[in-house]
Every structure is written in structure tokens, then in C-alpha cells.
């Protein structure tokens, strides 16, 4: 054995060890627990697939699933919005660095803080939204207290930092756009949208791919916003799978480890679809470049 074969193994070992203990094993543990009824304290009773059957008869589960879908779709707005802001900011004027950092600012602050700020925003009694409605003589809606608006309200709050993230990805991408190709495109008479669509965007594909990946992941693990803004309420109408899982298994009133694990398994399966798709896409791309 020479250093060339030993060193990579040595360098990978710590990461591999931690990944196995904290990521891989818990996944299988969750799958195992999901076949039991367990309050987290006493004995575990094997119940087979009963937790899953119960899930398909649970309105709260379907509400969470539907909200997860809403998150996935609406969160995607962060990608074009980020691109738009990046294009807008990708110019050389005095103080542009300051503007860029201001746009990036929401990504730096914690999700918890964002959630808190927006829940004050939305407060119909003393929030900005309330004052705006009152200015026009309308009575303000209770965005976080109404089942019709609550999920949209939280997603909108979540978009603020997510747009910033996509923007920074595109800004770095725009640095790598070859100026010769744009020149060439201009000479051929391409302008505006056509130039963007046919010349700039194809070169931004790596940034776009990354933006989609982080946005999908962000949408699926939208936990902290919900925990801080509504705790899944009112009456569970803003729940998503990740928070519902926490609520049933680990929260103040949650003593159902088995059921919580079953929800975790379903969430994992949904994520797995995306992970596999992303990996396949990355593999295809790399194959082409070789």
C-alpha cells in the first residue's frame, strides 16, 4: 500500500464515520421505529404497517402534504426572482457593492429572526400590513390566523432569504459569462430577452441547477419558519411534513415516536425522488463534459 491509496481513505474516514453514524443509521432507525407503537419512554409494541394505514386516514397528514406541495411550487419563484435581481445588480455604478450586500442581507440573518420579523409585519393590530390596510380604510386580515392565507404568508417570508441566496448564486455565475459570446450575439442582432434566453442563460446553467437544488431542499425542510411563526396553526392548517413529524414525535404533546417516524419515512421518500433526480442529472452532465 502506498500513500496514494492510503491518504484518500484516511481523509475520507472521519467524514464517512460521522455521515454513517448521524445520517445513514438514523434513517434506518426511523424506518425500524415506524413499525412500532412507542411513546419514547416505555416498551415498544410491534404494529406492522398500522402507522402507515393510520396516516392515510389522517386529515392532518393530507393538509401537511398539500402544504409541502405548495411550498415546493411557490418556493421555485425564488429562482427567477433571484435571477432578475442579479441581472439588475450586475452593473457598475457607484456603491453597487453596498446595494449587493443589502440584497444579500436577509440570507445572513437567521431564519428564526426572519420568521419573527414577518410575524410582526403580519400582525393586524400593530404590524405594517395592518397599518397599510387601515390607510386604505379596509380592515386588515389576520394573515397568520386565517387558514386561507397562513401558508402563503409563511412562504412569502421564506422567499425573502431564499431569493437572496439564488441572487448570489447568479451573481457569481454572471461573472463567468464570456463577454466575447455576448459581443458575438450583439453583432448577430440579438437584444434584450432573446440575448438573455439564448446567450446568457445557457451559460448560467450551473448556477440555475444549483439554485433549483437549494430551493427544493429549502422548501422541503421549511421547519423553523413554521415553528416560529405559527407552530403549524391555526388548527394545523399551516403544517408541513417536517413540522408535523416533530409535533407528533417530539413536541410538548407528542408521544408517538412510531407515527412520527412513519411521517419521517414518507418525507424521506419524497426527498429521495429529488435526490436521485439531481444525482442522475449531475452524472449525465459530467459524462458529457468528459
Amino acid at each position, binding site marked *: 500500500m502506498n500513500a496514494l491509496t492510503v491518504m484518500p481513505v484516511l481523509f475520507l474516514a472521519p467524514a464517512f464515520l460521522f455521515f454513517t453514524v448521524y445520517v445513514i443509521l438514523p434513517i434506518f432507525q426511523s424506518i425500524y421505529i415506524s413499525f412500532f407503537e412507542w411513546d419514547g419512554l*416505555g416498551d415498544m409494541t410491534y404494529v406492522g404497517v398500522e402507522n402507515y394505514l393510520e396516516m392515510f386516514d389522517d386529515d392532518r397528514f393530507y393538509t401537511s402534504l398539500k402544504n409541502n406541495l405548495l411550498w415546493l411550487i411557490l418556493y421555485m419563484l425564488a429562482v427567477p426572482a433571484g435571477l432578475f435581481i442579479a441581472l439588475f445588480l450586475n452593473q457598475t455604478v457607484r456603491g453597487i457593492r453596498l446595494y449587493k450586500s443589502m440584497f444579500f442581507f436577509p440570507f445572513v440573518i437567521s431564519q428564526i429572526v426572519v420568521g419573527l420579523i414577518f410575524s410582526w409585519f403580519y400582525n393586524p*393590530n400593530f404590524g405594517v400590513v395592518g397599518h397599510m390596510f387601515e390607510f386604505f380604510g379596509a380592515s386588515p386580515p389576520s394573515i*397568520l*390566523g*386565517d387558514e386561507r392565507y397562513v401558508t402563503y404568508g409563511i412562504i412569502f417570508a421564506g422567499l425573502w432569504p431564499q431569493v437572496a441566496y439564488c441572487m448570489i448564486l447568479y451573481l457569481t455565475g454572471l461573472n463567468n459569462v464570456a463577454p466575447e459570446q455576448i459581443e458575438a450575439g450583439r453583432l448577430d442582432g440579438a437584444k434584450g430577452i432573446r440575448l438573455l434566453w439564448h446567450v446568457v442563460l445557457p451559460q448560467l446553467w450551473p448556477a440555475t441547477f444549483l439554485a433549483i437544488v437549494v430551493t427544493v431542499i429549502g422548501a422541503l425542510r421549511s421547519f*423553523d419558519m413554521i415553528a416560529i411563526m405559527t407552530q403549524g396553526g391555526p388548527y394545523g392548517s399551516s403544517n408541513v411534513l417536517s413540522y408535523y413529524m416533530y*409535533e407528533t414525535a417530539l*413536541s410538548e*404533546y407528542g*408521544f408517538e415516536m412510531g407515527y412520527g417516524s412513519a411521517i419521517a419515512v414518507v418525507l424521506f421518500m419524497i426527498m429521495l425522488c429529488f435526490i436521485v433526480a439531481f444525482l442522475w442529472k449531475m452524472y449525465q452532465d459530467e459524462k458529457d463534459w468528459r
Partner: protein
Amino acid sequence: MNKVFASLATAASLFASSAFAGDLVIIYDDPNPGPKAAFEKVVADFSAANPDINVDLSINDREAHKTAIRNFLSADAPDVTAWYPGNRMGPFVDAGQFEDISDLWASDPNLSTSFEAIKPTMSRDGKQWGVPYSYYQWGMYYRKDIFDKMGIAEPKTWDELLAACEKLKAAGITPITIGTKYLWTAAGVFDYLNLRTNGYDVHNDLTAGKIKYTDDRIRATFAKWEELVRPGYFVENHASMSWQDAIAPFAKGEAAMYVMGNFAVGAMKDAGLTNDQIDFFQFPEITPGMPRAEEAPADALFIPSGAKNKADARKFLAFVARPDVQSEWNKAIGQLPPNSKAEVGSDKFIQEGMQTVSTAAGLAQFYDRDAPAEMAKAGMEGFQEFMIKPDRLDAILKRLDKVQGKVYK
């Protein structure tokens, strides 16, 4: 505020506090300045009386404590921990994680004689599991200045309450404030309506799973509730407010009543209200002649079965049960001492609370302490939904029956 973060912090602090034998490790759950100082005083007095015992005290955030306790009881148990009696202690008792202290209840002359009223709450399977240090009354807190100005007397009956609400509403004041974001406040209203409509036994049978939610008696409770919900007698937007947020309209004079526990008085005073502006009345009678039961949740201390220093922990619990200790402690936090020989504070709310509780026909803990956790969660969400969408009552009650069938099998 943020449970996840706080429980992580708690977990981290637990690793740091593995104590030596001979130390007494105590975990308490109220970091608010008043209660914290009061408990620290109790601990200091105990240390002074027992100089050989070295007390190691840590204080958790109240909400974080509720989730952290499940980890530390099995991972690194303290010698004494704060927790709630009634059904809330059930899972830990059943899992063998709390120490049976029936011996202490039997041998300690103070515990065995002065705690008769609350003993059933501390018992499960005929054994006692903890020592209560404080409890408090619930009821209707109201703006006395507004009532006086509008010539409204303290309502004694349901009709008088409805009349008062109508009068307030007509004057542009929301009759009752509430914040249901964290759900349990709605359970307080439900419990009182249910206790006044159907009495103490129905409350216990419902939370024990012996009565269905679609039962006519429970429907009657909701019918009374509807008489408050339909005309808009509760503040709007209550689903996005915590109980503290709901004090704002009360303090501003935009709302006049609040179904609450006595701990809210401190927060009302912090919001700028004085003793002359606020007062208390017992929740009005609904079914004439129904014996009056009250909500009076207790707070208690327990010894985990994994504790290392159980002898000193018993000493501490016996100390906490002493009438002089309970008198001083509860005067400091503005609550009622469970020890019947202890003195009650002179504050008017404490006095009225004592009068309310000591003459009650029965004492309920609270919906979410008397019902199992899973049922309580679903039930309280149902209450909140009903307060916003009273038309969905049938669907809500059927759903609660479904949950009930699953929880109590």
C-alpha cells in the same frame, strides 16, 4: 420562544452538569425573574439549613423543559425536577422514570396531614409521586374601571354575562380577549363552560375518555360557547396571538374580560394596569344549582428514579412541603400554597383565589393536564377551529371522537 434552539441549549447544559455524589442536582423550569428569585431563595434557605449538602441548581426555559425532560430523565437524571401532576406525570410514572415517594408522604408528619385536598392529584396507582409547591386559581379577570363606568356589575349568571357582553360590544369594546396561538387558552374557556354546564364529573369522564365528544352534554357546552362566538364577543385575530399578546387590547381598554389563570395578573400590571383597574370574578353559573368546580392547576417537584442522591432529594421535598417555606414562596410568586397550614398572601387576587378554590366542589387540573397529551392536542386544536369556524362543529366533534377512539384503546 424558540423551542428547538432552547432545548438544544438545555441538552448542552446537561452534559456540562454531571455532578458528584453528595451533590443535590435540581432542575427548575421557570426563568422569569420573580419565580426564579423566589426558588433561589428556597434553595438558599435549604442550603443554610443543610450545610453538608451542595445544591447544584439549573433553570430551564419553561417550554423547553417540557421536551427536554424526556431526554434528561433517561440520559442524565437530576435528583429533583419540576413537573406537573395529574395526567401529565402519567407517562413518566408508567415508564418507571419517577421515584415512588409514598414512604415520604406516609412518614413525614407535615405531608401526611396538610395536603389532603391535593393528594389525589399527586397520586397514581394509589402511590404518591411528587410534592406540590404551588397552585393558582382560574377565573374571569376584568377591567373594573370599564365595568364601573358602564354600570356593569360582576356577572353571577350566564344571562348576566351575556347582557354584560352585549352592553360592552354595543359600546365598541370587545367583551373578552384571548390569544389562542398556543391553543391552551381556549381549553381554559372550554373547561369552564363544561364545568358550569355539566359539572366536575363530566369534565373528568370526558378527559378520561368515558364520554364521547359528540355526546349531547358536550354539545350543550359548545352551544353555550357558540352564544359567545357568534356575536363576536371574543377578540378578532386571536389565533395569531399568544396569551401575552392578548393582554394588549385588555390594557388599552379595547377589551374588558379575560378567562385566565392568576399568573396573568403580573403581566397585566407590567402592561401598565393598576390594582384599581383590574379585578376578578368567578366564572358565572350556567346550569342553575350545579356545584361549582374550579380549575386550579398545581406545580410540583419530582424525584427521577435515575437520581443519584435520593436521600437528600427526599430531604429537599420534605423541606419544600413545610408550611413556612410554602407561605413565603407563594407570597413571593403571588400564588396559593397547597399546604393547608401555610399562610396565604394578603394580595386581593390571592385572597379571592383562596376563597374561590377552598369553597369549590371540585378542582380540575386543566384540560391539557387531565387528558392524555395526544387527545389534548387534538382537542385544543378543535376548540380553536370552533372559535374561528363555528359552522364546522359537527366535523370537529366527529374528528375528536376518532382521535379519542385511538388514544384510549
